[in-house]
């Protein structure tokens, strides 16, 4: 994946990245800003078009960045994405339940009463009651808004859910609730997760496997436990050592003056 810059040169954002997510598995893409982890996620979801290479979904080649309504709809039924800040994807004038119903209407032809029933069922699944269903997004807390975003994503009945720093902006006590919800949903709904995160604590709890990215390349891949307990790449080790934990002291590295 590369971008053409204004001066005519190409910026390579991703180089030779290959990985696979098995059905029902949760794979984390770990990296810092500029590592290419979000670009990967956006290519898979069809928001971004890769320069070269291919993506397969459920064994079929996926159209790069689908344009037609039909192709986009088809992609949406495979892949849904939940972002860090759900605020921007929720219409402030639309009630939570209407927002979920709208997605249902887009993907499954059915009657108004069936849609309503399905919307209530989805909201219940993400732990939101009827009262919140009638509320506007501005009245909700950050955790509640993220639950709405998850309900909306599930309304398209996707097989793969891409969570791009989906719990990063939440308060710690609320973050744990959403992590719990996500792990329950994976089991009950048979979902596959692609979890984009910079937070190694979150990654350890939510993923079975992970890839570590640095400057557009995969520097390490494997079972999450093994990668975090016994990192092989120097970069992975640097990342792990930078995480505050009991007994940790920050160290100066004298390496970054070139930035």
């Amino acid at each position: 994946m590369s971008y053409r810059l204004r001066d005519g040169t190409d910026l390579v954002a991703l180089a030779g990245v290959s990985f696979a997510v098995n059905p029902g598995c949760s794979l984390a893409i770990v990296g810092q800003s500029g590592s290419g982890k979000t670009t990967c996620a956006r290519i898979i979801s069809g928001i971004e078009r890769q320069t070269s290479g291919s993506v397969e979904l459920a064994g079929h080649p996926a159209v790069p960045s689908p344009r037609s309504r039909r192709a986009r709809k088809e992609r949406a039924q495979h892949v849904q994405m939940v972002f860090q800040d759900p605020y921007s994807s929720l219409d402030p004038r639309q009630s939570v339940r209407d927002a979920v119903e709208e997605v249902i209407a887009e993907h499954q032809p059915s009657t108004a009463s069936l849609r309503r029933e399905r919307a209530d069922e989805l909201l219940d699944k993400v732990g939101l009651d009827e009262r919140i269903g009638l509320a506007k997004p501005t009245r909700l807390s950050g955790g509640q808004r993220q639950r709405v975003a998850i309900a909306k994503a599930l309304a398209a009945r996707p097989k793969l859910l891409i969570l791009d720093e989906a719990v990063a902006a939440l308060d710690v006590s609320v973050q744990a609730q959403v992590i719990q919800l996500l792990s329950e949903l994976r089991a009950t709904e048979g979902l596959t997760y692609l979890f984009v995160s910079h937070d190694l604590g979150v990654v350890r709890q939510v993923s079975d496997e992970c890839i570590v990215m640095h400057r557009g390349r995969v520097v390490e891949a494997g079972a999450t436990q093994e990668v975090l307990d016994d990192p092989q790449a120097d970069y992975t080790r640097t990342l792990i050592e930078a995480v505050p934990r009991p007994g940790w002291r920050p160290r100066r590295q004298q390496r970054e003056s070139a930035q």
Partner: protein
Amino acid sequence: MNDTTRPLVDVADLEVHVRQGRETRQLIRNVSLHVQRGESVGLVGESGSGKSVTVRAVLRFLEADAIVNGTVEFAGEAVYDMGRERLRRWHRDDVAMIYQDPRAHINPLRTIGDFLTEALRLAHGTDRHEARRRAIGVLESVGITNAEARMAQYPHQLSGGLLQRVMIASTLVIGPQLIVADEPTTALDMTTQEEVMAILDDLRRERGLAMIFITHDLDLAAAVTDRLAVMYAGIIVETGPSLTMQGNAKHPYTAALHASRPSTVEKSAPLAIPGRPVAAWEAGDGCPFEPRCAFAVDVCRLELPELRAIDDHLVACHRAEDIADELTRERMAHL
């Protein structure tokens, strides 16, 4: 004024109300806090806890219509009795603030050199060469190697981590006695955070500066401070030495905050606290954590607990002694 026995910062019974439309809302209630010279105190809490409002009240940085009650003393001097001119000098010379987003607090049209030398030249009448020499000196002390070249650059040419180091450097030019850092590394990558924290920590120790460090990250706060104060809904629920705060938390909220953080060393589901954090004005008469607390009894709903000493901690919990064993057991189970 250089009385070394009394604390550098002494806050007593601080209350803050702000007007929102027609309503008056309480953000801080009854906060008392002190910081010794050279001491580093961490203020930890979630959104709405009042940690940022507390320090803004201490520095007298709140909007003019905010109602502040209680006393704030800096080196024995009442901050809220300072006249306009005295306040200006105090802000300029004795205290410094580092924010989460350095880009929002630096003029994008001026060079790094202008930014660093401005205060010296305008306020202290330092001549151009001396100001420049001092600015390069502080840039080097925050680990910026090609300081001469950086002086000519503009903020947009620097990465977030580098710009945050420039902000730290800028606080050192004048040589304050207190640095207040409000989530200074939250917007930075992990490896950059480590670098910036290490620099801040080194400088503070070398120069004997006092620091109030605000963060939502208990682990980070524990690593770089001497003492921690945990805030919830506008009150301090627990204070204690940073070394023992996590391993020996005595307030259910502190313990829960620790247990809800996804472990970086082991796969064990983080323990969620039900509900969401509330602000002071949303809390009732009783303990603000009561609706979310697994140990709450009737008295917790009715009476706001006061801070009292248990071992080397101060704890605002009616049941702190009764539940000590249970908190220890939970901690063991979580580890």
